[in-house]
């Protein structure tokens, strides 16, 4: 789960990472009120989970509460790369002497934690990594040992952070690490980390990604999640225990297991089709889950055909067939559904599908054949 900037900063503050004083506003009046409370010059920042909001006009300075109201009015409701701005963060604006980059993340390859720092902050770090890899200092941290001060020094000196910022940065880095571990995050990224005119080192932005598997030991996760808007179809899917991601095409996809579903998307695309979604029913899906999956998929009226690709392990193909037949009875589905079953009880499942009276239910022998058929049907080919 990715946090909004204001949420990330709230969490970092709990671990004593210095962040600017700020308040969240959902209306222009609230923004004016926040500016008044903070006093002086403020910056009004769109709260969206997409990069490039500054360029899009989502970050503006204001020197009075009235001006804060004006700019908040402009930013709220703005569309930034498909994300509607529902909240702004109003922060006290400070002077910026320098901008740096610092982050902690899970290092999948090394199977430990990775700290990264660069004196080139405020820009896309991946670009820095490509054009000037030596500008990024890296340090691996053993999860069993945790952070030691030398790790912080290695980052700060390695990145060539200027002398007047060193003390603040070396003090801040272990706090950021504590936040990373304490929050069960997979990423805490501060870009930019700034040096102010009075030599303080402050996190001007915060990107925090939490590991949802650790939700059971973090009561705050549920609350943080409630600020996130989930599209209706995804919400419905989640409620029904399905792993669903909306895509842009017209071939609905249902499968069991993330890898197999990804592979199914690929073969549909290779057959000339465009997948409408990723939907994984998981392991051991029963009839009801399958029926629900079809309901979620066909609630998107852009879907012209559905492909069900199941390889039964713990999942029983006879139950899958039962669920599909039930969905036809229950939902008055008009789109054709191509079904490919293999694995546990596949014979039985195939027989049930064959005997079902519905002409829009089309059994297929192989994964590739099923993909081709579904694409043909989505393009208006006869069943």
């Amino acid at each position, binding site marked *: 789960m990715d946090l909004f900037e204001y949420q990330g900063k709230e969490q970092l503050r709990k671990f004593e990472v210095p962040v600017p004083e700020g308040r969240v506003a959902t209306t222009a009046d609230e923004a004016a009120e926040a500016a008044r409370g903070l006093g002086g010059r403020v910056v009004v920042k769109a709260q969206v989970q997409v990069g490039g909001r500054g360029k899009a006009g989502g970050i503006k300075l204001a020197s009075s509460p009235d001006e804060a109201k004006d700019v908040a009015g402009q930013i709220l409701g703005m569309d930034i790369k498909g994300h509607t701005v529902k909240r702004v963060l109003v922060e006290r604006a400070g002077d910026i002497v320098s901008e740096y980059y610092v982050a902690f993340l899970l290092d999948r390859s090394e199977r430990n*934690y990775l700290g990264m720092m660069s004196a080139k902050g405020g820009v896309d770090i991946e670009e820095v990594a490509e054009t000037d890899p030596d500008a990024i200092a890296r340090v691996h941290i053993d999860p069993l040992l945790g952070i030691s001060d030398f790790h912080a020094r290695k980052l700060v000196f390695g990145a060539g952070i200027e002398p007047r910022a060193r003390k603040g940065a070396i003090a801040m880095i272990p706090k950021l690490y504590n936040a990373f571990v304490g929050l069960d995050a997979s990423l805490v990224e501060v870009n930019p980390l700034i040096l102010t005119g009075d030599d303080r080192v402050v996190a001007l932005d915060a990107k925090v990604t939490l590991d949802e598997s650790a939700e059971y030991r973090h009561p705050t996760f549920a609350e943080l999640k409630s600020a996130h808007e989930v599209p209706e179809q995804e919400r419905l899917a989640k409620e029904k225990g399905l792993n669903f991601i909306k895509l842009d095409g017209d071939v609905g996809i249902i499968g069991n297991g993330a*890898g197999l579903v990804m592979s199914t998307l690929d073969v549909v695309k290779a057959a000339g089709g465009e997948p409408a979604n990723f939907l994984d029913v998981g392991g051991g899906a029963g009839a009801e889950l399958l029926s629900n999956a079809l309901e979620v998929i066909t609630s998107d009226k852009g879907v012209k055909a559905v492909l069900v690709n199941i390889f039964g*392990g713990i999942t029983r193909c006879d139950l899958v067939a039962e669920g599909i037949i039930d969905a036809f009875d229950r939902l008055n589905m008009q789109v054709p559904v191509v079904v490919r079953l293999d694995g546990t009880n596949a014979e039985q499942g195939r027989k049930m599908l064959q005997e079902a009276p519905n002409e829009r239910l089309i059994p297929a022998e192989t994964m590739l054949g099923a993909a081709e058929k579904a694409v043909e049907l989505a393009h208006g080919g006869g069943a």
Partner: protein
Amino acid sequence: MSILIGTDTKLVVQGLTGREGSFHGKRNRDYGTDLVAGVTPGKSGEDVDGVPIFDTVAEAVAETGANTSMVFVPPRFGADAILESADAGIEVIIAITENIPAMDMARTVNYIRTRGNGTSLIGPNCPGVISPGKANVGIIPGEICEPGPVGLVSRSGTLTYQIVHELTQRGIGQSTCVGIGGDPIPGSNFIDILEKFEADPDTDMVALVGEIGGDAEERAAEFVKEKMTKPVVAYIAGVTAPPGKRMGHAGAIISGSKGTAEAKMEALGAAGIRVGRNPTEVAEIVQELRG
């Protein structure tokens, strides 16, 4: 021979008294795996279908000589169960449990690796391991496999079944199939398993099934190029996955320009590894290479 599990495997299931644990434990036993014990704290003296239950893994090892464990406990107890097995001297730990917090795994994996006494951890969030005709530990359906010379290693579950199925249908059997799981911090990665296949006299060729996210496939490609004599055929799922969308597995996400299927296929290709565009093509390439 085969890798990780075989006729010498003596299996203890952590969570054998649970619904899933007993279902799959018994299925593994029916396949021919030597299921010697179960562990559920507080249930010592009970049995599941004749298999004795112990309070601790150490006790199960002392009483039955168990050398392999399968972890089937709820996620919040997952890391602890793995550590308990490692502590008890279990040689191969296969963790099926899904949704263990990544930081629990970071600590657990590093503990096991730095102890350096050769314990292999497979998973978590994986379908397990099968050495066809010898032993099955996990949830891979045994009936789709056949004994033979092809080793298979995969980050995915059902996609593995699909490829095994395609191989078996062509009369090509498998030495061992290993599901390393879709988590960000896996106990074993591709290289750990490729090393074992390279050393296994019964494996002639390896099929590697990867997916988007991370750089495990790129690293595997380098390893194959430098260290392996046996041919490797690969498949990467997620060619059409859009960046920033997590495709089910916690590890399967393209962040920025990294982790794309294209980059992985390119790295594999550059290492002389043939890459199939779909599961069927993977099996066809294996068949072609076998002549």
